[in-house]
């Protein structure tokens, strides 16, 4: 009977997980926040009250007011508009670097877990080497070696994240490849790639999704940090990290210039972390009730 139950979990597995997630109020709140952020980013052209690079030298360093809800910066640019446009870059970098890291890391993990032996050893030792370098430091050196820019920023962050995903995927592949249905798939003459992509990966999506949500927060933070250091997005393109960086010299006199981009980063990261936590609970069959 226990086996039946185990199967039963996989049952409308995603349906069940969604049901459990819906019951988790904070996770749902985080999800709504994120969706709102994404909509803001997509519709920035319509929502933002000003152009993000519109300079107005009559109104520099203004505190929040009716005209400029979040004030203006040292060039008289509207902070709210810059933050709204900035969400585009942050979310884009977050999503695309995580997706790139999942694809490459996942592939490496799946291959090394499935084939085992020498392949596993070589790939995993390479991952260990990457892991031995602190992620931030690796991203900084990669970003410095490549030229600053959106695409290179994504690459730098993705490479630093690959080992984590490779490990997660490898671990789940190791447990799944010994299942009898994998043997059964071999028995009907399925090729290795078919077994990996069709039979193994769909069964280990849950941990990957959780890792991805939590990792996305990290990626956005790294993007902000790199931009803060001047290695990421270059001005005048608004990016939360680079906004913080250019505002830091005025932090004593014009608090609003550092506070609002910081709050934007915080809200996004917080929402992603809460959602990630909620997903981990929702996708963990043992917590099912």
């Amino acid at each position, binding site marked *: 009977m226990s086996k039946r139950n185990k199967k039963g979990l*996989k*049952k*409308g597995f995603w349906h069940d997980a969604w049901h459990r997630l819906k019951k988790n109020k904070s996770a749902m709140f985080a999800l709504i926040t994120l969706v709102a952020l994404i909509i803001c980013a997509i519709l920035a052209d319509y929502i933002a009250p000003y152009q993000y690079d519109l300079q107005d030298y009559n109104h520099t360093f203004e505190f929040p007011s009716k005209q400029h809800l979040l004030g203006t910066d040292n060039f008289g640019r509207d902070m709210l508009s810059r933050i709204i446009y900035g969400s585009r870059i942050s979310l884009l970098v977050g999503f695309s670097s995580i997706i790139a890291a999942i694809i490459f890391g996942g592939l490496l993990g799946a291959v090394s877990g499935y084939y085992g032996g020498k392949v596993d050893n070589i790939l995993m030792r390479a991952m260990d080497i990457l892991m031995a370098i602190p992620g931030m430091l690796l991203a900084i050196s990669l970003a410095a070696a490549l030229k600053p820019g959106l695409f290179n920023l994504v690459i730098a962050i993705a490479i630093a994240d690959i080992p984590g995903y490779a490990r997660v995927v490898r671990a789940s592949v190791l447990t799944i490849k010994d299942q009898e*249905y994998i043997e059964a798939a071999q*028995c*009907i*003459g*399925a090729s290795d790639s078919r077994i990996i992509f069709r039979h193994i990966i*769909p*069964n280990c999506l849950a941990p990957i999704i959780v890792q991805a949500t939590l990792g996305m927060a990290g990626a956005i933070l790294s993007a902000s940090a790199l931009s803060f250091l001047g290695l990421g997005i270059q001005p005048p393109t608004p990016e939360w990290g680079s906004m913080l960086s250019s505002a830091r010299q005025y932090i004593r006199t014009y608090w609003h210039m550092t506070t609002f981009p910081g709050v934007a980063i915080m809200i996004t990261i917080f929402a992603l972390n809460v959602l990630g936590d909620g997903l981990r609970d929702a996708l963990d069959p043992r917590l099912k009730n």
Partner: protein
Amino acid sequence: MDNIIEIKNLTIQYKTDERTVEAVNGLNLTLARGESLGLVGETGAGKTTTALGIMGLIPNPPGIVTDGEIIFEGEDLLKISKHKLRTVRGKKISMIFQDPMTSLNPVITVGDQIAESIRIHEKLSRANSTIKAKEMLELVGIPGERYAEYPHQFSGGMKQRVIIAIALSCNPELLLADEPTTALDVTIQAQVLDLIAKLKKEQNTSMILITHDLGVVVEVCDKVAIMYAGEIVEYGSLTHIYDNTCHPYTRGLFGSIPDLESKADRLNPIPGLMPDPANLPKGCSFEPRCTYSCGKCKTNNPHMVEVEAGHFVKCFNFVKGGKE
């Protein structure tokens, strides 16, 4: 007669650093086209290893096929390329697994799992393979509308029928059924066995049925091979084995089946345990448990002896009577 498969001197070992487990030792087996063979033996006798060996699926490491040939359609399955082997698996030889609960992928619909094997081997379009998969579902007595359901929505017996549908979807020439009914209760067992027997007859498939249930063998099989410690100890037709039981081990097996008519408080088991396959006796592997043991068995391993036409026994007690 035309033989579908010939296994010659198959030897499979599981090697670890500390010890070598001799799972299958010089196994010889032939099966004629259209016939069914029951491979009977207790747990750990090497039955499943033999079946996996035929499929080329011995987990390596630690498993190694150290010797032997498996001739299927004139080719040695142990020597052909991995790619070629894949065209044999599922298409020419397919396998039914022991536990229907774990042999289906929980995240793929039942129908797609049947269609998958068809799509791999028959080169049909997606739509056509779906139609064929539905036909297979109905053939095993499950309504075609349930195509898009997931394995957890099926009962154990139905899952086993789905597995049978997958195994038979490409009209294989040889079916390896590895204890197909062990995980099912008795009424479902009968249904599943009937279904296998019926489909086998319709498609003229040969079958190796692995089981430890002598009653099941009588229902479905033409030939019986009794396996003990990685060797076949007795081989013959149903009548040979059931009416003229020769090998002491086979006698012991029949002796341990309770008799419905007489009253017995205790079962009558064969004393002792299977020898440790990592440390087999020097002579006949059954000698330590054998009540008919003669001095010779301790040191020499007997050869197969033909006691009557088509009935082989691996025991010194029959050497005089038969021809070696």
